[in-house]
């Protein structure tokens, strides 16, 4: 008995190691760094991200003439340290991105399961609603909602979840439709399981992979949308250091050649989205062969 247990443990360890071997290292590392910066922002940032000294305005990065190591990535139009703002901006992106993806994922998955499993008028209602919301252009819809509820970090999460749950609902429902015809679900029905426990115990574990893959792929989309909303002034409200807000502020200095105010947050957004997309692509191949064609 103990031998078999150890054997399985060894086999599991082997497969975990194998599994980890082809994790795409670079995107994982980048996301790890951003997460690290987000969590320990208070210790990592040398300056307060929301206050600067007006005598230190528009200082270039340290390698350029006029820059100094005191502000390695320079300062912005209010003399705030760009490096510190980038670090705190990571926190905003991470918090907003992950919460929005989780909230929309949960809403979409639950509605997808209910719609697919119960069928009938429930399915009709949920799917008509999904189709309608899918028809609304995502960014315009998000702007419309933002104009109604006003800018705040919390509201951004609600808006992003409200706009993006439909993608999960569509895919999950499709899977549930084929799952509910399978033997194990029929047996559960015969065994007298309630509808709720079938959905929770038998259907949910089988669709959760697709939801996770989709969530990883949506992370990039959500972060870009958040940055776009912040850039347009309806996202994270200005004194907060979000990358989109930084780009929007930096636009004023662009024509005069203050490139770092645009390039620095831009590179951060790009790295984060690129990593999320690479990781999503990898997970898709790894977890869900059916989604490979997506």
């Amino acid at each position, binding site marked *: 008995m103990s031998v078999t247990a150890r054997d399985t443990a060894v086999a599991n360890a082997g497969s975990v190691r194998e599994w980890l071997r082809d994790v795409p290292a670079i995107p994982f590392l980048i996301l790890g760094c951003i997460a690290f910066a987000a969590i320990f922002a208070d210790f990592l940032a040398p300056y307060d991200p929301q206050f600067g000294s007006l005598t230190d305005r528009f200082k270039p990065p340290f390698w350029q003439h006029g820059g100094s190591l005191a502000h390695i990535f320079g300062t912005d139009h209010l003399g705030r340290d760009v490096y510190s703002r980038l670090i705190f901006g990571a926190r905003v992106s991470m918090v907003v991105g992950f919460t929005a993806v989780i909230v929309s994922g949960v809403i979409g998955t639950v509605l997808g399961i209910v719609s697919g499993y119960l069928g009938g008028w429930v399915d009709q209602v949920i799917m008509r609603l999904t189709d309608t919301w899918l028809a609304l*252009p995502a960014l*315009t819809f998000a702007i419309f909602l933002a*104009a109604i509820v006003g800018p705040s970090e919390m509201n951004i999460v609600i808006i992003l979840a409200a706009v993006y749950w439909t993608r999960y609902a569509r895919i999950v429902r499709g899977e549930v439709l084929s799952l509910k015809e399978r033997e194990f679900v029929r047996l559960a029905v015969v065994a007298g399981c309630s509808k709720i426990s079938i959905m929770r115990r038998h259907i949910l574990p089988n669709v959760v992979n697709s939801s996770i893959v989709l969530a990883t792929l949506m992370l990039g989309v959500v972060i870009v949308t958040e940055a*776009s909303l912040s850039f347009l002034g*309806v996202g994270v409200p200005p004194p907060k250091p979000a990358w989109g807000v930084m780009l929007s502020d930096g636009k004023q200095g662009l024509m005069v050649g203050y490139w770092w105010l645009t390039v620095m947050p*831009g590179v951060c957004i*790009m790295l984060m989205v690129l990593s999320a997309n690479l990781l999503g692509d990898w997970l898709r191949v790894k977890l869900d062969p059916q989604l490979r064609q997506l």
Partner: protein
Amino acid sequence: MKQFIARRIGYSLLSLLLLSLTIFLFIRLTGDPASLLAEPGASAADIAAIQKKFGLDQPVWYQYIYFMGNLLRGDLGESFYYQTPVLELYLSRLPNSLLLASVAMSFSLLLGIPTGILAAVRVGRFWDTVGKFFALLGLSLPSFLVGLLLILFFSVYLEWLPSSGSGGFLNLLMPAFALGWYFAAAHMRLTRSSMLEVMGSEYIKLARLKGLPEFKVIAKHAFKNALIPVMTLAGINLINMINVAVVVETVFAWPGIGRLLYEGISFRDFPIVQGVVIIGGSMIVAVNLLVDIVYAFVDPRIRLEA
């Protein structure tokens, strides 16, 4: 066929109805639609007047009928800032948006289709990897970032192109590139997968067996058939472009629908924001309907299935 089209139209009308209901309910969700519909800084008397005008003192179902009635008559309200009907404003900006979208679309097709074909023909080899990398970059670089970097490079350092405004052909280049960039990646991906599907089919094998040179097989037999889904996507995307252009148009101060929407946000001009969202949603419903009907004509399997 008639039945199929009738049902599709029915679904679309239902979608439009739900769409208007969604918009209507969201506006009321905040509790006080009058404060949204009134100008910023309006007095209590003004707000009372607005409440009376939109029937906000009446029951909700009455308000919805009133709202729908206005929509059906094409009355989307009046902009506070411009003091003109929103529909008129929208239509006056539409040509600019269409111009930008068509140039961006041509660009994205010119870049996306050849690279997609190249990637499919050389699948798994060097050019495929290069193509994949560019597609990923296209999907990961937000359009406003592309726009800002273009301005930095071509306007600030090289001083070749104007950074904003409209009028000349040169004004169009950078916004079109920034807007088309993302779509080029999407078109490339679809061209690649569509080409791969066609290349595996029987008639391509036959063309090869006939001894046709590979170039002719690809250019004449495979390409034409692989293009159908790509052109469908391009048609839908043209409408999408008008709706996602808000960021690019803001960056380049291009006077299109997106810029109108941005002005709507920054002046707190709510009727504009509401109008743009309603028209945008309706356009997408209409295009989806059109695509469904055209496909049903082209492919009998679809109409028999449904």
